[in-house]
């Protein structure tokens, strides 16, 4: 099983001693305190923690949306702090995918156009077979010509997931991707994300506060006060819930 081990140890993104401080003096808030962490390729990782634990900050800094106060973050072997805005933008466009909680889609573009937006921005055609495959997997073939306001919340999030997948990114970041959905729709989206990892070999890092959502992941990172306090492999909703209950202890 050397082959599997090699895949398992490949790292899509990692952070070394990542710190983020907001404000100055008395109002100083340490969102991240020298966090060192890595996210494995072809794995689905959930980041959990109470409000203010730094889970969103970690994700945003990993994704190049925000800059660290000190420390380093890497996508593959590219260190983000060495990149200027333009390089960061191109990195996001080519190597990263995003799924936000809400407002994921440009209202004036159709579902299909939203999916291919990062590719269009780069002026590339992308891998047409892959895109067709993604759209088919999302299961919205007949809705591709519709605009976001003609789609339900669940359908919109599916389009957002498809967009994140379309450019075959090295890693996809999700910020509470199902936070606005009812449990049934939420389950559909998470199933779909799970399959993207298992069947299509994608890497997903997702911030969530919901144990049921976290249970879809391969592993869960727990943050509190800007520190990683625990890591759980093959989580279940119950085990995550238990862990959360005792996180404050």
């Amino acid at each position, binding site marked *: 099983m050397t082959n599997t081990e090699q895949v398992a140890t490949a790292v899509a993104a990692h952070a070394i001693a990542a710190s983020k401080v907001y404000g100055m003096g008395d109002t100083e808030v340490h969102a991240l305190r020298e966090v060192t962490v890595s996210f494995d390729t072809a794995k689905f990782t959930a980041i959990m923690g109470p409000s203010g634990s730094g889970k969103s900050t970690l994700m*945003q800094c990993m994704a190049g*949306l*925000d800059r660290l106060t000190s420390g380093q973050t890497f996508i593959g072997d590219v260190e983000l702090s060495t990149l200027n*805005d*333009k390089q960061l*933008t*191109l990195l*996001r*466009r*080519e190597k990263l995918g*995003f799924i*936000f909680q809400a*407002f*994921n*889609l*440009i*209202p*004036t*573009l159709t579902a299909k*156009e939203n999916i291919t*937006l*990062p590719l*269009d*921005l*780069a*002026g590339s055609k992308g891998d047409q077979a892959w895109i067709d495959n993604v759209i088919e997997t999302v299961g919205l073939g007949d809705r591709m010509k519709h605009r976001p*306001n003609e789609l339900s919340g669940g359908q919109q999030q599916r389009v957002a997931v498809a*967009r994140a997948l379309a450019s075959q990114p090295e890693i996809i970041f999700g910020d509470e991707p199902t936070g606005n959905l009812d449990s049934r729709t939420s389950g559909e989206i998470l199933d779909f994300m799970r399959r993207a990892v298992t069947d299509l070999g994608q890497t997903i890092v997702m911030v969530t506060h919901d144990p049921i959502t976290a249970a879809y992941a391969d592993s869960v990172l727990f943050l509190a006060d800007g520190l990683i306090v625990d890591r759980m492999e093959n989580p279940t909703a119950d085990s995550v819930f238990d862990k959360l209950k005792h996180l404050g202890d």
Partner: protein
Amino acid sequence: MLKLVLRGISANKGRLLLTLVSITLGVGAVSGSFVLADSLRAVFSDISVQAFAGVDAQVRAIEPELQSSQDLPRFDDSVIDAVASVPGVEVAEGGVFAFEQVYTTDSDGQVVRPLGPPVFASSWGGPTAVSSFTLVDGEAPIGQQIAIDEVQAKKAAFNVGDVVTLTVPSGIPEDFTVSGIIRFGSEPGGSGGAYFNLFDLPTTQRILNLEGQIDSIVVAADDSMTSDELLTAIGDVLPDGVEVVSSDTVIGEQQDQFGQIVDIIGNVLLGFAIVILFVSTFIIYNTFAILVSQRTQQIGLLRAIGASASQVRLMVLLESVVVGLIASIAGLFAGLGVAALLKWVFSLGGNQFPDGPLELRVRTIIVVFVVGMFVTVVSALIPAFKASRITPLEALQNTAQQQRSLRARIITGLVVLVPGLALLAIGLFGGSDNTSGVLTALGLGSALTFIGVAMLSALFASPVASALGAPVEAVKGVTGRLARDNAARNPQRTAATATALMIGLALITGVSVLVQSLRDTFNDIIDNSLSADLFIFEEAQGLPFSAVLVDQLGAVSDVDLVAGFSVIEAKVDGEVESVGGFDTATGTGVVDVGILEGTPELASDEIALNDDKANDAGYALGDSVTIEFEDGAVDTFTVASIYDDATLAGSMYLDRSVTSEHVATDNVAFVGLTYVDGADPAQARAAVEEVTAAFSQVTVQDNAEFKASQKAQIDQLQFLLFGLLGLCLVVAFFGIINTMALSVLERTREIGLLRAVGTTRSQLRSSIRWEAVIVSVFGALLGVVMGLLLGWAAVSAVGDFIPNLGIPWPLLIIFLVIGAVIGVLAAYFPARRAAKLNVLDAISSTS
């Protein structure tokens, strides 16, 4: 409540600032035109008082009904002695003056004259108690001496003792010695830039060919009589047709005359100010509409916690009141600047205005505040009502604003547009002689038309913007696609934004069409109707000059045919009209007026009529027309020819031998001549110019030169109008910046998302820039189309005088390009701001 309003304003400072600029521009123009008019009126009224200091009464001829020249009517100078012999009269000084007849020439033989203001030749009895002039240097003129005003003396470097050659109506230049330098009134600048050439009375009468005639006697009396007694005593000795009035009456009349000129300047400026304000209303409306829609949730929340619909409405209106107030204050002060600037601009044109403070009257302040507040509040009315219709539910769900039904929009649009077009048609084709009525119909008609088109344009804003954006998308890819979609996504906003530009460019295009038509008409006439080898006329203002020149030119050996054209005022079948006087015997060889029926040559009892005039008045060949002349003679003329070309010959003409008999001063406005066959053109022209040299004010031009000079004059008019209307484009420019800035703000999250998924800053800027270009080109396109229609309608309305419709295609292309450039420039700051947004903040922003 007020706290909420003030907080709302201070939270939206940036958004309201650009709106303020556009209102301030409009209000500033209003304030400026009032301040300028008041200042000029005050200063000129002081000058009238100064000029008549020491005068108790003035004797003058009663104004006749018909008057072909701008000079005063004259009477016999024997009246001077009669008035002087009235007991109690201490001074009775008779005088005569003429307008634009006598000019000095400089050492190069060039005429000395200001650009615009007139040149007067007048008699002067020296610095007496009744004199309007003050001696600055030297002495009063006697015999072959002249006193020159200080402005002219400075310009031409004339000094006391210099010998100056003068152009006089006789056509034989005369040398005069400068005896003194004078000024009108006692303070510098009193003449408003006009030049004065003063002589003693007999010399003035001689050179003006007015022996024994005067036009006024100024009287100073001792204190033995009251003013009324004096007027009665003098009145008793006056012959028929001569009257006496008090100096107060004269001062009042002069002030009225100045007032009329000042009113014209003031009203023209006010007209442009109103256009600017009108354009601003669309921008104010747009700003408030966007502000309301952006605060839908906030307003919904207010409604949910108990604010009534009328309170919400009041809140928005109060906001507009505060904005209007600030803009009015700023506009008031901007107006003082505008007035000072305009005074300076006029002084460049040669109209030296006397120094005086800027008059800021209470009336101006009131008008400025009323106008500023009214325009702002009225523009905010519809947004305020829309705000009051927001339901509490909308606080919870940020639903898209409900679009008004298509049908309602078409109906309201048409309800405004149709009467607008009707008023325009009445104004243009109604044939009314009531100028202010016509102007009101045209103004109101165009305003309603513009509003109607603005409302209806929202119906096709999306498809047109989308079509305009198609090439952008083809070239720029998804960036262009976003620009195209954003320009088309909110048709109401796109239409309202484009409207400001539409109005500005519609007016500019309309003027261009009118001017081009004028140019084409002139070229057509010069090419096809004028067969003269040389044209002689006064170029600066088209003033008439002595008819002696026509006879002198006829004597030149290289000259074959000479024809002069003059215009007199006469009563034709009881109506006062302009009647031409044309040398018909020689004229047809020089000018082709397009004779349709009858003979070109007129006998002394025959008249030629323009075909439209003949149709309107029901004349045919052989009918008789009765004409009463200014000298009182009444004659009957037989219609001997009907001609086509009203531009050249007006609505009717007689033979010039007839008209010259009945006027006090025999002048012509235009002379054309041909060379004898085989004459050397250069030599012939030199011979002609030798003769015209005695009339230094006239210009001699051949066909090509004449064309060029006509074009230059029309160009000048066009540039002036472009300059004033260009202000509308400035306002429109601010409007587009404003809308783009607000739209960018509204789309903050969308922009954050775009940036997150890999839109570079330059891609984002490009997208916003192209969006602005699409919106502004939409406006420019509408404006050009509207302008073409307006221009076409205006040209058709005056088809008699401008038969050629000229469309300046290259200019129209330039206007569209200007529209695009305005879009690019207006997008600069909004695009920069959007590109600078922090991605995370933008994504997580709530509005």
